[in-house]
């Protein structure tokens, strides 16, 4: 589902979570699978809206910067997405919130990301912590 927009998703992803630049292809695939699965459970209309919004994110910067989103440098990408986040139109803010949420789900939903940030919750609770887990 995301194959046609993979480069846009990855460009947005590394703007939302800069550490994502360190991911290898397998890790990117895992993130994209999570995002695709979350979208697949939603109505078809919402999936179409998501893909349309991604394409708007790609092409709208051409009006302001003369380049597509994927061709912008990192500061300008961040500046553009910040503009979407603070846009006067609720529809635009919602779209940005959705993009951001989906990528954060894919990135921080990985056990590797939890380990990297030091999240150590364990079903065994205090017993595990005292045992040094």
């Amino acid at each position, binding site marked *: 589902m995301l194959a046609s927009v993979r480069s846009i998703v990855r460009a947005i992803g590394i*703007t*939302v*979570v*800069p*550490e994502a630049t360190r991911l290898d292809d397998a890790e990117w695939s895992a993130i994209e699978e*999570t995002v695709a699965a*979350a979208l697949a*459970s*939603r109505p078809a209309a919402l999936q179409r809206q998501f893909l349309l919004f991604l394409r708007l994110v790609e092409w709208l910067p051409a009006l302001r910067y003369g380049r597509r989103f994927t061709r912008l440098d990192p500061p300008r990408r*961040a500046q553009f*997405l*910040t503009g979407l*986040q*603070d846009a006067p139109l*609720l529809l635009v*803010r*919602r779209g940005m*919130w*959705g993009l*951001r*949420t989906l990528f*954060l*789900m894919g*990135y*921080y*939903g990985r*056990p590797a*990301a*939890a380990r*990297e*940030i*030091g*999240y*150590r*919750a*364990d*079903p*065994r*609770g*205090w*017993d*595990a*912590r005292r045992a040094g887990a």
Partner: protein
Amino acid sequence: MTSRSYDVVIVGSGAGGGTVAQGLVPLAQAGRRVLVLEQGPRFADDEFTGRELEMAGALYHDGGGFLSADGTMTLAFAHGYGGSTIVYTGTSLTAPERVIARWAVPGLDHADLLRRSQRYLGENNVHRLPAEELNDNNRLFETGARAAGYAVEQFPVNVRGCRGSSLCNLGCPNQAKMGTNRAQLPTAERGGVEVVTRAEVVRIAADRTLTVRVRERPAGAKGLPSEWQPGDYQVETKIVVCAGGALGTPPLLLRSALPIARALGQGFTCHPALILVGEHATPITNDVGHPKSFFVDRAAEEGFVLETCMYFPFTTAKALTGFGAGHSAIMGAFPRLQQILVLSVDHARDGNRIEIDRAGQPVVQYRYSAEAVAGLVRGNRAAARIFFGAGAVRVHAPFADPPLIDARDAGRLDALIDERHWKPGKQAISSAHLMGGCRMGASAADSVTDAWGRVHGIPWLFVADASLFPDALEINPYVTIMALADRVAEGVRRDFAGLVD
């Protein structure tokens, strides 16, 4: 289509449905047929892994991503044997007297609710955790709240054998939380009540027949198969008790086209909530231990309640405003993070309502009131004061722009955290306290049911969940839901002969 016949059918198995099921054991033991239909599955103990996306996908409606119609608030509710009691933290507070007085439901008084609530507090082993089981995240809240001048209280919680996994909201992996899945439903089943899972009630007909769809267990999914063969059923009954929650019961009744008052679906409210994060200089215990031990109740005075909380990586990342290096820096400091949940009071009002779409699924029309936003702003400021009072070096406050506030600016919180920074769709607002839509009241002119949960004009149809609330409860609702459901069960037992014969 297969046909079945029962005397009483209860739709839903959460705080309301589970309580009614147990309350109707005397009928079952007298040979009457009592059935609980639960939309979600029954989970095996070892299926609660604590893994965030895996458990959210299995337990929550839409994987925890159900949104209000305008997309600005996430509404969390669960499906499964035990309903949303599977995923709450077990905080067990009784309804404030001033709230029940304000509800002004003829025939409902606070003393009666309190008496019934206390019975369930005992049954669910509600107590305050000993000091040695509290983690730093909770202790720092207490310290900071006292330093900031707030009266702080310890939550009573309904756990037995809690190991401190911190994973309550993903379903307790140690079966320590006394939800209806652990307490009331097993008692009901031992007493002869039948529970069927993966069974969605499509509609209720005026001749007291329910159309029920039993779903197959999807390949690879968590949960046990249904007790019935997958397929469509017609279930005839004498009495129906709807207990599917505020986003289950009103949609079911709207789909059913019964002659119900115009108030059906109206008066939806919730406690809009957001998360603040405080960063400390050194690591604290936060992802081990019960996550919710203390609260500050300023609902009556300032329209907000603060609660300790500790969420999981994705939920935390989503709750933070913004993105990029600043966002990552906070996430990278996870072992040093303290979290506070701010809940705002928002009274029920015209326009905020539950509807259904063309597929019969719930649609929540909700607009933030000025009162709710003001409560969130004041709650943001109070939470920030508590963090700094506890020694945090910086705070992430969604109602500040930029959201990160350093300790050196702790004296400027009123200026930095302000309503001018509120932008629906930018801040991550959520709610797990969903109320109203079938409000109690005097007559069909102003409400859906009477004070005993009986639908006006339909003597065989009852409601027993948070949709009964005529207004916000201003605290965690499950004990009050159980108390109201206890009244419904009593009413059904009392009037059973007349309704069946």
